């Protein structure tokens, strides 16, 4: 296991100065958090400069300084639902990141707020994907709209919206098939779904597209965000598998480059394991203020 940054710092701080070794260590720590070589170097250079003028006294001061520098690069998505009309959440991502499970968790989350949630099984491609969502629907006591395996996902979405509008439900969570961001035909399919949602009169304020990112993913997460964002403009990110202890540093780079805010963090496999993104906590962990 990686030794915590705090522990590393303590060893260094014994010297009472922040010397070159300290800044190299900082850079390493950030790289190991998947922040990327370039950003890690940039941050440690900035800290090195700032340390001269701001004269931090303790290791904690310095960590707070790092946190401040990273803080600008990250935005929070407010997960509150706009009242008064049907909202559609489209959940997207590459294969196996945790889309379907996140949907189940979100269903629970919004049900707890008294919302009527409908699940739309628009992953008609992967083996038993519909059944997986259906098991969740049963356990959660949620309505689900589905068609048979292999049918057109756009048509599932169309059905879901039509029936939710008729029943006055609050939120549709649309499960989509995992797809690689570098496969154009799969991204085109998303644009089709996008058109159908808009065609049903769902306005932008009530229509949000989430990209799910696995926290163990490294630099490829940036490419994922870029290409999905190009195909359908993304509204927010969901970070999953944060219980892996991977720090999810790719999100900082995504934030810097694409400015996409973060909505939720998944921390396990049960329904309660989802939390609105807590920027402070995320950054504290990223810079080692928590160990």
């Amino acid at each position, binding site marked *: 296991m990686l030794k915590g940054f705090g522990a590393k710092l303590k060893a260094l701080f014994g010297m009472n100065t922040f010397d070159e070794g300290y800044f190299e260590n900082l850079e390493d720590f950030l790289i190991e958090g998947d922040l990327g070589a370039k950003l890690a170097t940039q941050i440690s250079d900035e800290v090195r400069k700032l340390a001269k003028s701001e004269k931090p006294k303790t290791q904690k001061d310095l960590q707070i300084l790092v946190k401040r520098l990273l803080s600008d690069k990250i935005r929070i998505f407010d997960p509150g639902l706009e009242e008064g009309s049907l909202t559609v959440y489209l959940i997207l991502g590459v294969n196996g990141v945790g889309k379907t499970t996140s949907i189940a968790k979100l269903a629970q989350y919004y049900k707890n707020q008294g919302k009527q949630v409908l699940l739309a099984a628009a992953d008609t491609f992967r083996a*038993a994907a519909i059944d997986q969502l259906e098991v969740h629907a049963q356990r959660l006591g949620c309505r689900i709209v589905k068609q048979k395996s292999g049918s057109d996902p756009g048509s599932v979405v169309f059905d879901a919206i039509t029936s939710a509008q008729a029943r006055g439900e609050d939120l549709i969570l649309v499960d989509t098939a995992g797809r690689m961001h570098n496969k154009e035909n799969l991204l085109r399919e998303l644009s089709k779904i996008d058109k159908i949602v808009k065609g049903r009169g769902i306005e932008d304020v009530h229509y949000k597209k989430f990209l799910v990112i696995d926290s163990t993913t490294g630099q490829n997460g940036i490419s994922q965000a870029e290409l999905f964002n190009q195909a359908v403009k993304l509204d927010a990110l969901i970070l999953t598998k944060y219980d892996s*202890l991977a720090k999810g540093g790719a999100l900082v780079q995504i934030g810097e480059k694409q400015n996409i805010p973060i909505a939720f963090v998944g921390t396990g496999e049960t329904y309660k394991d989802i939390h609105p993104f807590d920027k402070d906590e995320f950054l504290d962990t990223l810079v080692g203020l928590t160990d």
Partner: protein
Amino acid sequence: MFDSISDKFSGIMRTFAGKSKITEKNIQDAVEEIKVALLDADVNLRVVRRFINGTMEEALGEKVLKAVDPGQQFVKIVYDRMVALLGDEENQKLLLKGPDTTTVILMMGLQGSGKTTTSAKLAARLKREGRRPLLVAADLVRPAAILQLQVLGESVGVPVFTLEGEKDPSKVAKAALSQARKDQRDILIVDTSGRMHLDQTLMDEIQKVRDAIKPDETLFVADSMTGQNAVAIAQEFEQKVGISGVILSKFDSDTRGGAALSLRSVVGKPIKFIGVGEKMDDIEPFYPERIASRILGMGDIVSLVEKA
């Protein structure tokens, strides 16, 4: 994504080109570029360090300094070292026993890494080679996991063993092994649930599965897009369960796949296959040369270097 790395290497070659003398400084700059390239490819930082140190030593030797084209020679050293590190093809075959006994293959890995899909792909492949595999649905946790394997098994014409109502995966695996022996199935492929390397309960559970069936191959299925954590994750699986080989899934993404180098250097076990898509024949043997070029992002430079 790939371009910038190729640019880096072209840059390195240019740095060296036309220099009457290669200095240590030149090489240090080049090494720094390579370090960044490897980190961008998600090679683990510690692995990068080790790799760089070794490369430096060799690059500072006579061979580069006296080469007609030192730039190319340098890149060739980097490439050759990486290929060597990634493994030899001999090692990569599955350890299969003769058809008169049952070879046991245990699949394991983090959640969503591709175990179930890869299990079915392997079964299809082995069936094509004339074997008689049996798939085992020992993921009793994920909703519809059993059905997922059944659908895939059916699509490749390989039976799937299930044990209705059983909660203990080691019991399912054990019963499957008896069944396989009775039916003269020569390969057993056991799909298990995804688990976090730090989850003590689940790691204990897979140990129990292992002890119940004594696998000939314990394959760690990892997502090729994994970042810096790949090493810590694999180390836990290696220590707690033991890995005999690695399969890297989702290589059809645009990942540069540095995790391959990290896993290979740290766990020291062969990478046996890569997954390149969702279809049942989207599995390929692992070719170190191809992956090395990909990690270095220098497909076109390889041919250039070969002439050097």
